[in-house]
């Protein structure tokens, strides 16, 4: 079923992660607006819908990203308001770390129109596979890196920790210059040292985006992270501390009693 606004994702690996459902929606909508990154996935979107339009031009160097995302959202809402069945296509999972998808859905519903967000493969899905991590095994915490520091998040060291966008810590602008992030990573290292030992092994991770590409999996000691090259795609994965999970024996007794 199509909605007035259909928000879909391409998955992470160009083409390979594009679901049949998403292909159908892109082909069926009147207007397709996309925010994808590499020419390969762009060519796939255009192959499915030759009239699809890129919103890449809305990215202006140095501009606050929130303003850019508002403009992306506005384009989608405007198309719906004109009565066109609209599809917004985003890289990855459209509901994971995608501000404009949610703001567009809210705005469209305020107009009395229908909207739906469809699932896709996210970077987290790729991380679980590439690092062979089962989030059910020890639990898993997941934060945007700036949010993690700014709000002084506490850490459950017995569970895994995923920090997204470590290459954009503290930077609210669109900056494609590949700036030096060593000072921000040093802040992150110092904060994490409140919870983990200096030699705790962590991973810098980037999922593969091209079919023949290998993922980036770079292990190192927590103390050494400030010298690592990062982009907005880079994720820091912190495995749980071994032995940090201690069962609550009182709860164990109560659980057993509840089963009798």
């Amino acid at each position: 079923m199509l909605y007035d606004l259909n928000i879909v994702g391409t998955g992470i690996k160009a083409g390979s992660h594009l679901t049949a459902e998403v292909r159908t929606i892109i082909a069926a909508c009147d207007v397709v607006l996309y925010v994808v990154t590499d020419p390969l996935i762009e060519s796939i979107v255009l192959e499915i819908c030759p009239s699809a339009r890129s919103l890449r031009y809305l990215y202006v160097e140095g501009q606050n990203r929130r303003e850019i995302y508002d403009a992306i959202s506005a384009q989608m809402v405007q198309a719906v308001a004109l009565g066109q069945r609209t599809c917004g296509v985003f890289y990855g999972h459209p509901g994971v770390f995608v501000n404009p998808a949610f703001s567009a859905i809210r705005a469209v519903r305020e107009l009395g129109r229908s909207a739906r967000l469809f699932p896709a493969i996210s970077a987290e899905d790729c991380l679980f596979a590439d690092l062979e991590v089962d989030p059910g095994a020890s639990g898993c915490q997941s934060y945007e890196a700036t949010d993690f520091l700014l709000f002084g998040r506490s850490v459950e060291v017995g569970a895994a920790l995923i920090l997204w966008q470590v290459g954009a810590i503290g930077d609210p602008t669109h900056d494609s210059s590949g700036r030096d992030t060593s000072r921000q990573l040093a802040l992150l290292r110092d904060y994490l040292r409140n919870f983990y030992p200096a030699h705790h092994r962590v991973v810098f991770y980037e999922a593969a985006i091209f079919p023949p590409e290998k993922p980036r999996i770079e292990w190192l000691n927590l103390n050494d992270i400030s010298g690592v090259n990062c982009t907005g795609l880079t994720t820091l994965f912190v495995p749980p501390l071994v032995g940090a999970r201690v069962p609550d024996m009182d709860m164990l007794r109560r659980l057993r009693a509840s089963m009798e």
Partner: protein
Amino acid sequence: MKVIDFLRDLSSDSNLLIAYVTDPVGTMDRAGIGKDDQIAILSGERDRISALLGGATADIKIMICINLTDPA
């Protein structure tokens, strides 16, 4: 065949993917991919593959923004 067309087919054509996994060089030869481009593809390195496509723009993959002046 252009590299972008080859990679696009590789992502959607399971028969081509099977052929590539079994014999990457032979599959790329048959597709008319040049030797230098083959080396870049076989490297599995994003920057080299991206360069064949005109360069990716990883920066716009950041799609969430924490406003430092108004964290609420």
